[in-house]
């Protein structure tokens, strides 16, 4: 069971900023209302972040990865999420073998 000091510092940095996001909305609403552009921008953040994370792998790596991404999305529309994740991983293995 090792605990690296730098890793611990990184984890605590994540913990501090995450706790801040959890209390800030409550704190803000007690003083003012979040509305208009600010609310719209905040609403778009999670989708924008997740899109940014997957974009290089899904669109700019190769046809096997792009194909598997499409298959994952199609599976996720109909089936439980974990089935879609497993299907996506299987698809990328199969497509890499086929297209290699």
């Amino acid at each position, binding site marked *: 069971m090792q605990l690296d000091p730098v890793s611990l510092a990184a984890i605590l940095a994540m913990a501090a900023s995450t706790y801040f996001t959890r209390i*800030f909305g409550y704190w803000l609403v007690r003083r003012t209302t979040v509305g208009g552009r600010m609310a719209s921008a905040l609403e778009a953040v*999670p989708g924008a972040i997740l899109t940014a994370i997957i974009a290089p792998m899904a669109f700019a790596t190769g046809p096997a*990865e792009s194909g598997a991404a499409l298959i994952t999305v199609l599976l996720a529309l109909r089936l439980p999420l974990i089935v879609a*994740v497993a299907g996506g991983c299987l698809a990328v293995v199969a497509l890499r073998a086929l297209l290699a």
Partner: protein
Amino acid sequence: MTRKDSGGEFTAGALTILPLLVAVVVYGLLFGTLAAQKGLSPLEVAIMSATVFAGASQFVAVEIWTSPPGIVLLGATALMVNLRHVLMGAALAPFLKGWSRGQIYGGLHFMADENWAFTLKRAAQTPVTPAYYLGLALPLYVGWIACTTLGTIFGGVLQDPARYGLDFAFTAVFLTLLVSLWKGKRSVAPWLASALAAVAGHELLPGVWYIALGGLAGSLVGAFMGPPALPAKYRETAKEGGNAA
């Protein structure tokens, strides 16, 4: 409120959240496996799950984890990925009347997508007690810590993750989360802006700054997509709560 009432409220909350624990087990084991591939120890994963307790940001953190890890980058990335909590906390605020400061600021640490949604659902019918909220939150919290730690212990055995397509697992997890975040037309422009900025940033910038760039581009475009599609009732009550406070 008597102790017995609190027990009943806690049980009601716990029974409500129980079916969702299946997903926590699967995602927790998967997260632990991926964390082990990046060299995190079970103890480090247990501490992260207990103190951060936010699945998406933890997956992102492990994806961009280096040794030694970038403290500022990880803190800033967690902040951006978890910004949705600001809106969630704002929506919850009017329903925490009668809670003590300790109950509010302690309870908010356990706010996750699942128990947040069920809390709002409950609040539409009857006042939400701290005991009910804790009943929703505690099984998720304990389950997440346990399963991520177990995943790290046993997932470390797996060699060569690409052979099983596990290098694609992050992308697949985030794609499934994206499907659930899809809000129709109002999602198209922000997500497109984010994808374009991220691919460009990935080519041109070092490290993982492409994630921040894409997130920023997407939320800037999102600012011009009109008001969020929160149920009108919540927006009204949120406003009243804000004025009253």
